[in-house]
């Protein structure tokens, strides 16, 4: 990774800071789900009614590892890269796009599983999905702004 901060458009640090904040929310969500899984705690849904079905389904783990743990890892990585990007590290911006791209693809798959296989939704999973979609919008916007800035200069 390039360790020298580089110039960016004025809006990009703000976007990356927003991405870092959203990643923190996602991190908290994922950690809560992971701990609930590990302790066998009941996760209560408020807006939807399928928390039990989703979180105890075969899709809620990979091997013996709860999916939330992977989510936590993804969000922490996204947070770290967003912070570095906000401080002007250009390689972090590129890596952030890759990581968020992977999270976006995973989110689409999990939404498909909830909608068409389990026929049940879970609030915490939907929160995570909306955060990942927001992160995707942010990194794409940041990328487009950067490209426009480079073209202009």
């Amino acid at each position, binding site marked *: 990774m390039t360790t020298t901060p580089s110039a960016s458009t004025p809006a990009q640090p703000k976007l990356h800071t927003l991405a870092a904040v959203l990643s923190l929310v996602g991190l908290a969500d994922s950690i809560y789900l992971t701990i609930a899984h590990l*302790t*066998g705690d009941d996760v209560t849904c408020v807006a939807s009614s399928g928390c039990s079905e989703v979180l105890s389904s075969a899709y809620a783990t990979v091997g013996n590892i709860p999916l939330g743990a992977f989510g936590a890892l993804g969000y922490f990585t996204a947070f770290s890269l967003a912070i570095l990007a906000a401080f002007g590290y250009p390689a972090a911006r590129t890596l952030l796009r890759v990581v968020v791209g992977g999270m976006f693809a995973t989110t689409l798959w999990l939404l498909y599983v909830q909608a068409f296989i389990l026929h049940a939704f879970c609030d915490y999973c939907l929160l995570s999905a909306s955060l990942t979609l927001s992160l995707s919008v942010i990194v794409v916007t940041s990328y487009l702004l950067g490209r426009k800035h480079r073209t202009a200069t």
Partner: protein
Amino acid sequence: MRRYLPFVIIGAVLLVTAGGGFLLFHAKTSRTSIKVATGKPGAEPAHLRGGENARVTLEEFGDFQCPPCGIFATTLLKVERDYGTRIRVIFRENPLAMHAHAFTAACAAEAAGLQGHFWEMHDLLFEHALNWSKEDPRLPARVMPSPGPNASPDEAAAGVRTIFAGYASRLGLDVERFKKDMDGEQVIARIKSDQARGASIGVDRTPVLFIDGVLIPFSSFNVEALHTLIDAALAGKAPEPPPPPPSPTPAPPQ
């Protein structure tokens, strides 16, 4: 300084996350206590599946040769799948003397348990109970206490023992060790401990189920009723078995 600031932020978040996660985990596990019926402790460690730290405990006393136990095993498996790690299921041995091969089956399950495959053998025994239960029914039963001096336990249950050894082989167990363990003191002691626990809390038949230490009537041994009881227990309420159905009233005279 600004050059290092992002790394300081990342490190701080990592520390807060790890610390917060640990505290949350600790808080949740420390308030989780295993609620079971009070009585003699039973074999330790108990055979347990589901969430090790789950809030709700289902403790079953079963006999592998009892037909209702076999049916209930299917029901319970469905419930286990529905609740995943939110419930903890304990199986206790209670082979009844009236079933010729129940004790041998319990020995097989416990011997598989010594190789870390109790539940796999438990599932196989229930799944194929109709097959092995019919095996050479003329053979005398091997029941607790030990058979009399004229009956050789090995000869008495030879047919089913061969079948159980086949199951052990299918599960990838060390079959020779399995056969040896089936007659071992450790296995017998576990079964006796479970039976002693059962006797101490009034278990006199099979299957018997306790949810968080509350005896559940046989009429609730179906998926819907168990869901209701478990949901109540998860919500922090003591599971309340439904009242017995009202006795039929005589029809009014025509």
